[in-house]
C-alpha cells in the first residue's frame, strides 16, 4: 500500500472515468485502491481535473466511510459490528482483536489497521471479518489470531 503518489498515474486513473464529475465517487475508489487513501494532493488534483471545487471533493471524501485521508497499514482488518454478528459474539471478538493488536478500533499497528464494518452479507456465517478484500466467516478468537499472524509482524 506504500505506493508513492504520482500525478501522472493519478491523472490516468481519473481520466479513465472520462473526466466526468458524476464519477467522483468511483474516481475516489480507484485512487484509494491504488494509494490506500486520499491525500490533500489527490483532492487538489481531482478537483482540477473534474472541474469542481476542492470543497466539493472534500465534502464527498468526508461523507463516505470508505475514503480515508491518512495512509493505512499494510493490511486493513474490518470486523463486522452489525446485529447478526453481534448475536454471535462480534463484540468479544473485537475486544480480542484490540487486545491482541494493542490498538483500539480505527487504530493501526505497522501491519494492520483495525476498522469497523456494518455487514458483509455473511450474516448466516457470523461473526464475519474482511481483510483487504477477502471475507471470512465463523471467525472465533483462534481463527482471528491466525489471520492476524498471516498479516505479518
Amino acid at each position, binding site marked *: 500500500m506504500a505506493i508513492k503518489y504520482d500525478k501522472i498515474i493519478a491523472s490516468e486513473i481519473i481520466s479513465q472515468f472520462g473526466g466526468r464529475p458524476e464519477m467522483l465517487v468511483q474516481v475516489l475508489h480507484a485512487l484509494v485502491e491504488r494509494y490506500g487513501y486520499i491525500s490533500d494532493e489527490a483532492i487538489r488534483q481531482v478537483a482540477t481535473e473534474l472541474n469542481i471545487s476542492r470543497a466539493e471533493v472534500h465534502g464527498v471524501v468526508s461523507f463516505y466511510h470508505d475514503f480515508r485521508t491518512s495512509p493505512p497499514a499494510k493490511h486493513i482488518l474490518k470486523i463486522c459490528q452489525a446485529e447478526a454478528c*453481534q448475536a454471535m459474539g462480534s463484540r468479544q471478538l473485537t475486544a480480542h482483536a484490540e487486545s491482541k493488536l494493542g490498538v483500539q478500533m480505527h487504530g493501526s499497528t505497522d501491519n494492520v489497521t483495525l476498522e469497523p464494518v456494518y455487514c458483509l452479507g455473511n450474516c448466516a456465517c457470523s461473526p464475519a471479518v474482511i481483510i483487504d478484500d477477502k471475507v471470512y*466467516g465463523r471467525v472465533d478468537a483462534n481463527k482471528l489470531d491466525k489471520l492476524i499472524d498471516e498479516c505479518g509482524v
Partner: protein
Amino acid sequence: MSNQVTVFVPRETSAVSLGAHDVAEKLAAVENVNVVRNGSWGASWLEPLVEVVVGDDRIAYGPVEVGDLDSLLEAGFLTGGKHPLCLGPISEIPYLKNQERWTFWRCGLIDPISIADFQAHKGFAGLQKAFEKGPEYVLDQIKTSGLRGRGGAGFPTGIKWQTVADTEGEQKYITCNADEGDSGTFSDRLLMEGDPLNLIEGMIIAGFAVGASKGYIYLRSEYPLTRRVLTKALLAARDSGWLGQDIQGSGFDFDIDIHIGGGSYVCGEETAMLESLEGKAGVIRYKPPLPAIEGLFGKPTVVNNVVTLGSVPLIMALGAEKYAEFGVGRSKGTLAFQLAGNIKRGGMVEKAFGLTLRELIEDFGGGTATGRPVRAVQVGGPLGAYLTAEQLDTPLDYEAFAEMGGMIGHGGIVVFDDTVDMAAQARFAMEFCAIESCGKCTPCRIGSVRGVEVIDRIVSNEDREENITLLNDLCDTMIDGSLCAMGGMTPFPVRSALESFPEDFNK
C-alpha cells in the same frame, strides 16, 4: 473425456469465506475432474457445499473443508460414495425441497456467468416475450402479478414503472439498488453471485417497459466478490448481444454500468443513492418530486431492489397469474427470507408470504446455533423492532407485520439467544444512527447522539425515571421530525427493547 466428472463448488461469498476457493483449487488438480463454480443454493450453514454429478443426480457433500478432501476422495465421492459429509441428492435436502423457489430457482443450479447454461434454463425467455408483446403488455403483467418492492417499502412495482413510462423524457434510467445495508440480509448478494444474468434480464425488461436505455447497479463496496461476478456477467451478456445496441435484433438499446457505494448505510435510501450515483455525498432529497418523475440527473428513473428486478423475468416467462398464486392478501408472490445471527441452519429461504416466524426459525433454522433459547428476534434490518420469543406466531405478510408495529423490510431475520443484552442492542441502534445519519435533520443527527448518552445513564442508574421519560421523548421527536426512516425508525428497535425487555435496563 467420457469419464470426466463434473463437480460444483460455489464461488459465493459465504462459501468462499469458509474456504471454497481452496477446495475448488485442490479438486481442479485431480485428474478428470471438471470444476464448475456455481452460486450458492442458499443453505449457508452447509457451505462450502460441494456437488458431484452422478448420472442424473447431483450428490451433495458439506460443509467441505480442504482437509476433508483426502477422505472424500478415498470414499469415492467422485462417484457419489458414502461419507459422513454426504447429504444425498441436492434436490432431496429438506431445507431446499420445502422452499418455493421463484426468483432464486436457478441459484446454485447453473454456472452464473454462462449464457448457454442460463438459456438452457429459461434464461432470456421473459425478455423475448417482452420484445414480442410490447411495453404495454409488460406493464400490465407486472401490475397483475402484484409484485411489490423487496427493498423495504413494499411499493407496487407496476405502478412505479407506469409512472416512469408515462413521464415524458428523452432519457430515462433504470437503477438497481444493490446497497443491501441491512444487517441479516444477503439475498441480493446471493442472487447477484448465483444468477446475475437474471438481474440483467430484469433490468433490460424494465428499460424496455418504461423506455430507458441506460441502467446502473449501485453495489455496496462491502461486496468485492459480487462485483467480480457481476462484471463477468455483464461482459458475457455484452459479448453475446444480450446487452448494448440493438439487443438480439430487437432494435432496443440498453446497457448497464456498476457503481460502487462508499460504505454508507443511508445511501440505500433511494434518493441518497441517486445523489451518490451522481457523484455526490449521499444526502437524502426531499420528496416530491418522486424519483420516477425527477430521479437521476433530474430524469425519470426507476429505482428497484435487486430481488424485485430479479423476480420480473420469470413473471414474464410464466405469466403474472402464476406468480400471484403465491402469497396471501396483498402480499403476493414469494419472499427471500434470510435466517441470520444465532441460528443453527442459517441461510436463505424463499417461500410464499404467510408462513410464520416460528416456522422459519424452528423448522428451517433449527433454533439457535448455541442451542440456547431464542430470546429476541430482529426482523427487517437495523430499523426493525425487536420481537420476543412469544411474538413468533405472526404470519409473515406486509400487513400483519405492520399491524404489530414491525416490518418485513428486506426479509432479514436476526436471531439472538438468551445471553443477549437488550440495553446494549438499544444503545447500538442509536449509535448506528449517529454514525450513519446523513446529517440533514437535527432530530436524527443530534437525537441519536443524545440517545446513546441517555441509555448509558439509564443503565448506570442515574435518575432512572427521568431518563426513561427523556428517552421516550427523544424517540417521539425523532419519529416526528425526521425526513427519512433512518431517524424516523431508529426508535423502533430502541423502544421495543425498552418495552419488551425492561429488566435489561435495570441490572
